[in-house]
């Protein structure tokens, strides 16, 4: 599972980095960014799915 954020949709609500701080953080303007290359470590899939399901802009994709 590999996470990406569509920057044309992300508005910086911050639900992703609030709910899944191991997978996301914020940039200097508060927009969400994936940590590392976005690859979800084993055991973190549930956390990733929760972040995706809570993004109000539907900006997070999992490939």
């Amino acid at each position, binding site marked *: 599972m590999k996470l990406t954020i569509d920057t044309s949709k992300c508005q910086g609500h911050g639900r992703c980095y609030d709910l899944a701080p191991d997978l996301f953080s*914020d940039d200097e303007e*508060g927009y969400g960014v994936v940590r590392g290359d976005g690859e979800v470590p084993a055991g973190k899939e549930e956390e990733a799915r929760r972040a995706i399901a*809570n*993004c109000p*802009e539907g900006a997070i994709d999992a490939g």
Partner: protein
Amino acid sequence: MPADDRFSGETTKIRDRVSRSTRSKVIEGPVTDWATDFSHVDPAWAADPYPIQDDLRQRCPVAHTERFGGMWIPTRYEDVADVARDTGRFSSRGIIAANLRPPRDVAPVGDVPPISSDPPFHGPARKLLLPAFTRTAIGRYEESTREFCHGLIDEFSARETVDAAVEYAQHIPVRVIADMLGFPPEDGPQFRVFVEEALEAVNQEPEERAQHRDELFDYLYAQVREHIDHPRDDLTTFLINAELGGNKLTPEHVVGTMALLLIAGIDTTWSAIGASLWHLATNPADRERLVADPSLVIPATEEFLRAYAPVTMARLVADDTHWRGVDMKADDWILLSFPAANRDPAQFDRAGEVLIDREVNRHAAFGLGIHRCLGSHLARMELRVAVATWLERIPEFSLSDPSSVTWSAGQIRGPRMLPLRIA
């Protein structure tokens, strides 16, 4: 360097705007039919809007009213989201649905950028402010907010009853924003008057509204002049020095943004804290669960934001348009009810119930699209700290007199009197 004389003039431009605004007839009196004669300032809507929203969502789903010079009220999540994202068709030139419409030529900047701005002006004006409001930047106010909450509770914890709206919730956002803007903390009571006049008194005669605006802007101009003489590390000095595209901001932009930051954060957060405490006072099982497991404060406050979303916005239709089966005229208002969106059963399971451990909660309490609440990280910090500190200090409480609880009318909804028994 020449002296900064941008702010020496009178607030004439702002007065001129008010005098050029379009006025519509003030229609008062109780609503006859919510689908065709809607009013967001009706006391029945203030007391309990949710059954009305549910009814309209099934029946219309886009309600209408002749009041405020003509207004449409979408009630489905999908429709509210579409209006929020379609900034070409629905302009933010006006965001408080009242009997006064700002003149067309104030777009795309508007009176209080960036909330009143449309693209292409909106993006850069918002970008200036983003760094000061990230979760990381806000983190530095968390400890002092917690201490402040403890201080408020110290004042009344020995008593039997307290008005949690007046003596607790309302003070918390005032203090933080005054600090960020660099305004004297003792001016707090004055800010609450500004807020009430800007947001709640929408059916006043335009002249009266204009006079209240003058009072606010006179205060802000005085603060700017004081900051020019004594610059310091706060948002007011930042805005005075800020540039867009190589130019200093216009005085109207600087003062308009200061007005926005002062007004936008106070009533809203006060309402969110008050509604959360009201829910816990009236639902002992949720209160006990939260006291037993403080880690639930995060999902619980998100759920309170969903279920009791304090903020409704407005838009003005840019040009005559056909949308969701209705014919809208240029300059009709759209009431953008994030509260109604948040209770749409097509978007949320068990939408009408409050589930403090709700896992999937894509609520729209902070808006959707380009105007996403700039202060959402600040508001969340204040709400979480205010609720957690209260529960830690006062784990048992209930309404002392249910009939004396009052809710504000208009576009910001929250308890304005909330007497609680705390011993």
